């Protein structure tokens, strides 16, 4: 559906970007989500026409790396767009307001957009000792997310900490940190990663804006467009893995040649994320951990990142059945086909017929010979 020229003019004014840049962005976002090209028009229309959804962004135990990741994105105008597509009504670290003023803004936004606002949580929620280890405005993180979640249209857990506990939950987990989904006891959309690619978050939000629902997710709440495949499957070094060419230590010949980092502890084979496909930081080729020569640490994967030693070997998830392995007893050949059976039958029939004729002739000859012998006598 074409968007009227007038709307584009508005976009130009509002976002300070050209129409071309804006449409390029919409197409890119649609592509990130694996949507068909036509969806770009829908995305554009939604961004232009719809009312910006109110977003309340809450921090728990974390380093604000997810917000930083979002702001550091070098994609043209992304920063502007993310702040203009959504109405960021409450964000503890980006807010100009402080103290009671900030708290009042949150309550006002909750009241005004009840049942419609998007709640984004960044950071884990401490559960031990009544959750006293993380407090904002005198309230524990748990109280804050419970209060805010009550009227939220959708909840997004941004980063590994909010998704499943992340680094604060690493053993011995002194604060009893858990992800926001577990803290609230409900399924939320998770964008794990430390930090996650900003495009995964942005695409999910734009999907929500365009289609009024969150994108399809897996059992852990991860959007399938970004987290349905292992890093190993799209890795640029995969061919080296398959050929058994491994870097054995940092700086050795294999490492300099760009060989597979599995032996250095790469967790790509057990980590679901789209890092090798979308990369990081918009600086071009190879701008992701494995591309720069460091093994993946599995930062987005619960039970891998921050729990398995960085240089411990990964298990191979995509080698689980049904992967391409010969079974213990594999059938070979294709079984009989009609033509083959017919040919063999014809040959057998011909042989039997010839045999019968031959036998008859021999017996005839023998009886003939017997007759002649008799006649001689």
């Amino acid at each position, binding site marked *: 559906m074409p968007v009227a020229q007038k709307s584009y003019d508005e976009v130009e004014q509002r976002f300070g970007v050209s129409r071309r840049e804006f449409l390029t962005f919409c197409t890119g976002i649609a592509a990130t989500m694996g949507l068909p090209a036509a969806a770009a028009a829908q995305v554009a229309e939604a961004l232009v026409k719809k009312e910006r959804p109110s977003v309340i962004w809450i921090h728990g135990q974390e380093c604000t790396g997810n917000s930083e990741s979002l702001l550091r994105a070098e994609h043209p105008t992304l920063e502007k767009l993310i702040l203009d597509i959504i109405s960021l009504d409450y964000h503890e670290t980006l807010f100009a307001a402080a103290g009671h003023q900030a708290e009042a803004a949150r309550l006002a936004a909750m009241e005004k957009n009840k049942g419609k606002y998007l709640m984004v949580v960044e950071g884990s929620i401490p559960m031990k000792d009544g959750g006293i280890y993380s407090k904002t405005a005198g309230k524990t993180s748990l109280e804050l997310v419970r209060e805010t979640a009550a009227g939220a249209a959708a909840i997004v857990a941004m980063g590994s900490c909010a998704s499943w506990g992340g680094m604060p939950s690493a053993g011995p987990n002194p604060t009893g940190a858990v992800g926001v989904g577990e803290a609230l006891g409900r399924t939320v959309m998770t964008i794990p990663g430390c930090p996650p690619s900003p495009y995964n978050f942005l695409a999910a939000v734009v999907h929500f804006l365009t289609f009024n629902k969150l994108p399809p997710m897996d059992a852990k709440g991860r959007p399938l467009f970004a987290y349905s495949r292992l890093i190993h499957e799209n890795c640029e070094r995969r061919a080296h*893995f398959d050929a*058994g060419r491994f870097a054995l230590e940092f700086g050795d010949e294999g490492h300099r040649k760009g060989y597979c980092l599995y032996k250095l502890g790469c967790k790509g084979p057990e980590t679901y994320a789209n890092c090798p496909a979308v990369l990081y930081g918009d600086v071009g080729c190879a701008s992701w951990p494995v591309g720069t020569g460091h093994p993946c640490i599995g930062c987005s994967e619960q039970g891998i990142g921050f729990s398995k030693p960085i240089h411990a070997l*990964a298990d*191979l998830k995509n080698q689980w059945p049904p992967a391409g392995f010969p079974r213990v007893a594999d059938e*070979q050949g294709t079984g009989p086909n009609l033509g083959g059976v017919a040919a063999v039958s014809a040959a057998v029939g011909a042989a039997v017929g010839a045999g019968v004729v031959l036998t008859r002739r021999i017996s005839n000859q023998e009886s003939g010979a017997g007759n002649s012998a008799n006649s001689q006598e």
Partner: protein
Amino acid sequence: MTVNRRDFLRGGLGGAAAVTACATLGVDPAEARGNLTVPENAIGFLYDSTLCIGCKACQSACKTANELPFEDNTGTGLWDTPLDLSGKTYTVIKMYQNGTSEHKDKAVDGFAHLKRQCLHCIDPSCVSVCPVQAMRKDPVTGVVSYDADACIGCRYCVAGCPFGVPQFQYDTPFPRIAKCQFCKHILAKGGIPACAQHCPTGATLFGSYKALTAEIERRKAMKPGQPNLFPRRTVDSGDTHERPAAEYTEQVYGDKEMGGTQVRYLAGVPFDKFGMPVGLPERSYASVSETMQHSLYGGLIAPAIVLAGLAAAAWRGARELHHDEDGHE
């Protein structure tokens, strides 16, 4: 000459009795050949199924090191996809699957990998049956190797191997026997076999037979679930990685089978599930058949008796024939 049925059967029985008598009486217990023993400085592999991640780097490295062609069984022409050992494949990673295939190294609802290759028997049947010594066991390393120049293509080794390892190249005009030879060309240059060199987890581990025996004992003593260090490439390489120990089955495959093999296996799934022959005798087939053969032909006594019997029968038959002819005249 006419031999009636009664005489024929009598002669046959007599011959059989002579052979049996030689076989039983002629066997000197001192001459019975026992299993061969492992050479002092023998080398070998330990394949630990619980460490194998199924990356097939060994398969790929083996083909490169031995200049083997790729094998396409999927019809795509893209990937090397051998289904089993073949004239083009010395080693292959096979998979056991059961039920939902969720748990690694579990027999029920689990899966596990197994590397098929030559086991390099301590007392190999293929060497025993080879009529021209094309199959030989190195007296120092114990590696069972193949000499294509000596081979006459009889395929006794193919039939004789209890593990189904040697493969005949049926599809070439100048066929050879295809079989792992422990990368002897790399060993000669001081290297280690390609599969062990490339295995990223140390599932295929190279080392001396004795050191691997100690390593097997160490692994069997590990407490399942507890983190342990596992060496890679060679047992004493110092290149280790840490991971929780798996729960092994009781059997160490190749420890006793057919008098033992220099390639031994540890796994979390019983070996019959992998299609490996289990319940093989501890006495090697080679020692049984060689004892029998050497007894029968020992000192050429048995053949001499059989020859004498045949000569007697022939003489008697000839005499009867002459007698008949005389009578007729």
